[in-house]
């Protein structure tokens, strides 16, 4: 099971997304979400959106393992 987190504006599109999913890469998660959450999937396609696995920024093809925490991060706006 992969744990999913959506931050910033992505959270508004992900309120109905289940908190866990079965997938082997972040790219596959995005693909799996397309059918039920097309608006969210479109947001995740934006080139500025980053993905992290276990709190480290990674590429979309990063292999996932049971218990991985995958977070989708729009451009940050702190400070």
């Amino acid at each position, binding site marked *: 099971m992969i744990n999913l987190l959506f931050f910033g504006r992505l959270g508004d599109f992900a309120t109905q997304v289940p908190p866990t999913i079965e997938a082997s890469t972040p790219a596959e998660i995005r693909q799996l979400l397309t059918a039920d959450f097309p608006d969210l999937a479109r947001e995740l396609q934006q080139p500025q959106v980053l993905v992290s696995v276990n709190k480290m920024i990674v590429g979309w093809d990063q292999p996932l393992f049971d218990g991985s925490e995958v977070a989708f991060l729009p*451009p*940050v706006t*702190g400070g």
Partner: protein
Amino acid sequence: MTTRIRIQQQDFDLAEEYQLLRQGHSTVGAVVTFSGLVRDFELSPEGSERIDSLNLQHYPGMTESLLKNIVEQANSRWDLIATTVIHRVGELLPMEQIVLVGVASEHRADAFEAAQFLMDYLKTQATFWKSVKGNGKHQWIESKASDQQAAARWDGVADE
């Protein structure tokens, strides 16, 4: 170097933080502080609009390690004696404090440059997201190209 990093909902006290930065180091000749405050206008795509409140979300665990990394980078580029970064999260009202960066060093150039570097990197690399409420609307703040440019000026610059 003494490092103090805090992510917290509660407010901070500049005077207390300043004492921590200057105390116990007789070689401190310069202390620079930057405080970021909630302005009562925030630029929205439709122009500037009055806000009721600002909300800061972050990614617990990841933010702390990113801030630690940013402070370590600053410490490797400049001669620093003490550095403080405090960032608030949650609901904030206009004129409240959001963020504090404080740097103590022997000479002023180090403190000024490191404080600017820390703010530029905090704005572009730390996992915080701002939203505003106002006029009955909830709206996420867009990231600013000017912040990306400000951070980019530190890339590829030889250590000073």
